[in-house]
């Protein structure tokens, strides 16, 4: 397993948050983090750690442009999203992919294949033949070719989560967010995810994301893979360098999130 190394030549800022306030979507009066500043650069592989309920999902939902921040500015690829036209925003947003937690939020009434074809056909970014070829290629890469005609709603959670990844890959996003990708998958599928993400970082099917962000309540699988760590606890955001093992060993939250499984 090779760690995902940061691009040494002045990495470009892909997504930036300035003084952002993030609220809880189910409890509007609750604020999860205030005056949050975060830069996602080309070559970054982040893991966002925090205890369950700390607000990791809300944070990446705002960073991915799915939810709006209560305050502050969000910049996609150098353009502040609050000040660009909807069409331009959509173009930038297509460069940001999201794999949702807990079964990937796949479209239950569509087949596995149609889950992939929907974003491709909707945005008409390529010809129908090219879209079809790319969808079939993704299915093959993710080991789902044999189930392409099955209804997504009938898949097990393991496969739904994988379909969520396959669907997020269709638009070849430059930044890929994965919300608790290992949260519901069993050990076998979990191993597949880690191996596949390693391959993805190297480039797969002529595409690779420039930055990947995962959230996790257990840092164990990620600590040796990532080059950036972000922690959220009690509304406080903290960034750590995973190569600085001295800091990690003394950090109580990191120790808790590793659950004692790693000995430094």
């Amino acid at each position, binding site marked *: 397993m090779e760690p995902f190394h940061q691009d040494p030549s002045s990495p470009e800022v892909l997504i930036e948050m300035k003084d952002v306030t993030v609220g809880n979507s189910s409890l509007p009066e609750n604020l999860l983090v205030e005056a949050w500043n975060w830069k996602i650069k080309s070559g970054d592989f982040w893991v966002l750690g925090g205890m369950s309920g700390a607000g990791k999902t809300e944070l990446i939902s705002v960073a991915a442009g*799915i939810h709006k921040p209560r305050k502050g500015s969000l910049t996609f690829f150098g353009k502040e999203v609050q000040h660009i036209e909807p069409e331009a925003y959509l173009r930038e947003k297509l460069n940001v992919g*999201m794999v*949702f937690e807990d079964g990937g939020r796949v479209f239950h009434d569509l087949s596995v294949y149609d889950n992939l074809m929907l974003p491709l*056909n*909707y*945005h*008409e970014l390529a010809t129908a033949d090219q879209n079809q070829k790319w969808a079939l290629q993704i299915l093959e890469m993710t080991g789902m070719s044999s189930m392409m005609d099955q209804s997504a709603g009938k898949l097990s959670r393991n496969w739904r989560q994988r379909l969520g990844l396959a*669907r997020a890959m269709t638009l070849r996003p430059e930044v890929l967010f994965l919300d608790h990708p290992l949260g519901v998958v069993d050990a076998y599928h979990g191993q597949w995810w880690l191996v596949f993400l390693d391959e993805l970082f190297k480039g797969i099917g002529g595409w690779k994301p420039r930055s990947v962000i995962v959230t996790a309540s257990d840092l164990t699988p990620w600590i040796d893979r990532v080059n950036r760590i972000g922690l959220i606890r009690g509304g406080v955001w903290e960034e750590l360098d995973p190569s600085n093992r001295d800091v990690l060993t003394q950090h109580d939250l990191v120790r808790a999130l590793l659950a004692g499984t790693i000995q430094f």
Partner: protein
Amino acid sequence: MSRTVTSSPETDESTSRMTGPGKLPFSILLGRMIIRSIGTLHELLAFSLITLSVTLLKFNRSKAVVHPIIRSQIYLAGIRLVPLVGMVAIMTGFIVVGQMISLFSMIGASRYTGLAMVVAVFRELGPLMTAMMVLARVGTSTVIELGTKRAMGEVEALEALGIDSIHYLVVPRVLGLALSIMALTIYFILISMVSAYMFVFMQDIPMKPGAFVNQIVEALHISDFLMLVLKSFFFGTIIAVVTCYEGLARPIRLGDISSAAMRAVMKAILFCVLLDAVFILYWMV
């Protein structure tokens, strides 16, 4: 904070005006209901305008995805409902119109048959009954379908993929339901006219088919056709917008979907009847 209850006449009087499980005064409950209704109306209007603007601006976009859904909605809300609408139209023709014609014949007012047919079926029963059938069969399933998508996070997934949920989920349903109700209303009227004449024929009432049709044609005006099209189109639009709004516009949990469906049905009936009243006012003026 607890409230002290005294036995003063004022308290007794206010208690007598209290109602409901929370024992709140009727005036407060009424006020809350009015404020809630205004808020809902405001949201529904905003939702309708957004849907209208998306329909106009994006109708020709993503045709490979959206247009097949419009066709499938026409099938679900229109073609699949033809047998049901046909059956109800036959019964309406027999029970309501046929008996009315039979009665007119008995009192020597046969010349009003066409007018009665136009007023009862063309202007009122046709559009309203068709709309209610579509609401019961398709409107409720729309709330459940969209509410489930919302509760399962599929709507957020659409947005994350840059797919406009109004364009993908609402516009096809609005167009599908509006066009389906228009078409079904015409079927309903035609079938109920035929069944009404069948009743007349079986009752040995001396009225030839040509005379029956002539009376109806004479009673009809161009504005009747225009109103029929407008009425049925707006009934379809109301049903689609209200059911989509209840399923989609607000965060919802799986357990709340049944009550959302109930709310949608009540609101759709209310708005359709209100619109019908507006059309009746037009005729009266």
